[in-house]
């Protein structure tokens, strides 16, 4: 074990290899997230309860009341992509709480003692959130099919949805990883998680169309990444729904890039 004397050149080498190291770190973190899911997927079903209530209770009730005008679609059709993106957001926001949890144990210290670049760790965790989000969304999607919501089953559309979900998972996990180094304690982060998810949900287009919102809410909604995520999903899942998908994806990616950068910069603070 004494024999690895590669350190004299490794500064030079490190620069050359940084790209490949970055990708390897990201894919390793995502791989082991998948393995954890394989060992125990019960959490995904437990977390499926809340979206199920939104669809079964709220969705069916409002469909029959017809209180919200969603054009040619049924309200359940309109709501399903909203609940899908909400469920992914809830999963993703948990990653900031988990970061604090892992800090309190020794996991994060251990992870940060490897040569992996900080930014790759942030991105790896963000992709993990996306991966978990896909599985979470499958549960909600299957449920929606069971209660006979008409959704597009075109494979290309579904691949598009998966991509949107990964972006959503990355976006909201990075947001919560920005907050973790600021609030630092698990209790505070739990509270923050609640305090950001509900407002994000209610000020987005997830449960009502933007054009029917009061003016002030429309403005907020336009700055809410969840609106864009939901819109992109609607455009992919509801045949005939019009939305500017490139704009939606661009907005989602921009928000992700901003949050990921801030999270990486603040990351070191979580250990202090």
């Amino acid at each position, binding site marked *: *074990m*004494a*024999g*690895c004397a*590669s*350190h004299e050149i*490794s*500064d030079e080498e*490190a620069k050359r290899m940084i790209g490949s*190291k970055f990708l*390897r*770190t990201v894919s*390793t973190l995502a*791989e*082991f997230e998948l*393995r*954890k899911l394989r*060992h*125990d997927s019960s959490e995904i079903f437990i977390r499926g309860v809340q979206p199920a209530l939104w669809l079964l209770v709220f969705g069916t009730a409002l469909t029959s009341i017809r209180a919200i005008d969603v054009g040619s679609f049924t309200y359940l059709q309109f709501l399903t992509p909203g609940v899908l993106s909400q469920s992914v957001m809830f999963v993703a926001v948990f990653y900031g709480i988990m970061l604090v*949890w892992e800090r*309190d*144990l*020794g*996991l994060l*210290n*251990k*992870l*940060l*003692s*490897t*040569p*992996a*670049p900080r930014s790759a760790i942030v991105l790896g965790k963000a992709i993990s959130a996306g991966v978990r989000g896909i599985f979470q969304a499958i549960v909600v999607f299957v449920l929606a099919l069971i209660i006979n919501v008409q959704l597009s089953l075109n494979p290309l559309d579904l691949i598009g949805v998966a991509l949107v979900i990964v972006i959503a998972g990355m976006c909201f996990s990075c947001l919560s990883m920005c907050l973790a180094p600021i609030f630092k304690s698990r209790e505070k982060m739990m509270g923050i998680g609640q305090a950001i998810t509900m407002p994000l949900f209610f000020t987005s287009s997830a449960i009502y169309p933007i054009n029917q919102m009061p003016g002030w809410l429309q403005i907020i909604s336009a700055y809410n990444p969840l609106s864009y995520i939901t819109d992109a999903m609607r455009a992919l899942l509801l045949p005939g729904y019009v939305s500017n998908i490139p704009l939606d994806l661009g907005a989602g990616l921009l928000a992700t890039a901003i949050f990921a950068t801030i999270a990486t910069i603040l990351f*070191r603070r979580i*250990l*202090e």
Partner: protein
Amino acid sequence: MKAVEAMDLTKMYSDFKAVDSISFDVDEGQIFGLLGPNGAGKTTTIRIALTLIRPTSGTIKVFGIDCVKSAASVRQISGYVPQEVSIDTDLSGYENLLMYSKLYYTPKEQRGQRIQDALEYMELADRQHDLAKTYSGGMMRRLEIAQALMNRPRMLFLDEPSIGLDPSAKTAVWNQIMHLRDEFGTTMLVTTHDMHEAEVLCDEIAIMNKGKIVADGSPTQLKDDMGGDMISITAHDGDCSLILREHGQLLVSKPDEGTYELVVAQGEKAIPAVLESLEAHKIHVESVSLKKSTLDDVFLKYAGARIQDGGTWRDARVTRLAMRKRKG
């Protein structure tokens, strides 16, 4: 080259000095112990060396590499066993190792062999595919050490390696640590509260208290600095004080009661000589007892408090384990 070289290292948390301008160095191939009570600054020192936190001032180098300027290179040659539970209990033992061998960019062809070696070595091979949450505390600790070996580190940092373990698990961990030094020449920095552990494991010790290093040297040196061991003698055939003074410092001399207390450098070696010269003067010795000076005495002398007063470290680890298990 020194394995670790710290110069005037200081870490401030707002205006509290967790580490107060300490300097020390660790020779290659040594087990170096940082010994101190709760809050001494041991973990903080290790975290600075591992580039997890930045020092407020001063420098620290690992095998000549600066921990602030070339953080990634230091991390590539270092291994770390944190004080807290650091394995992922939602993964199997094998997966915990595989994950770290990947995070250290171990070439694919070498991964399998390294993992199996580490599992054999830490006696975990038969349980490698069980989820780590089903492991005992001792197994978790051994898995953590195995994990830290994935990059074949030149420098291994162990933060309270035997914390919360029962005596037999503790001994097993100690043996494995010493084996690492003897067989692979791995240099190690170990922190501990436990005097006995420091004595068994360490070639060199620095005693830390309130952020400062208050004494350092080999365990024997430190104990010798105390003036050595105490021999108590009972003998009633006249006054022995003159004879005893030739062997060391006579602390207590009560010829009327026949009791004497003598301080010598190395008790075991001094006793036969003392007995011989008393016998030569036809003095019959009724009893002899030896009280070795311990590192605890050393600590008492330098830090003005017994180390056991520290408190609840064991509870901390146990609570963390419990938390972790509940979550899983």
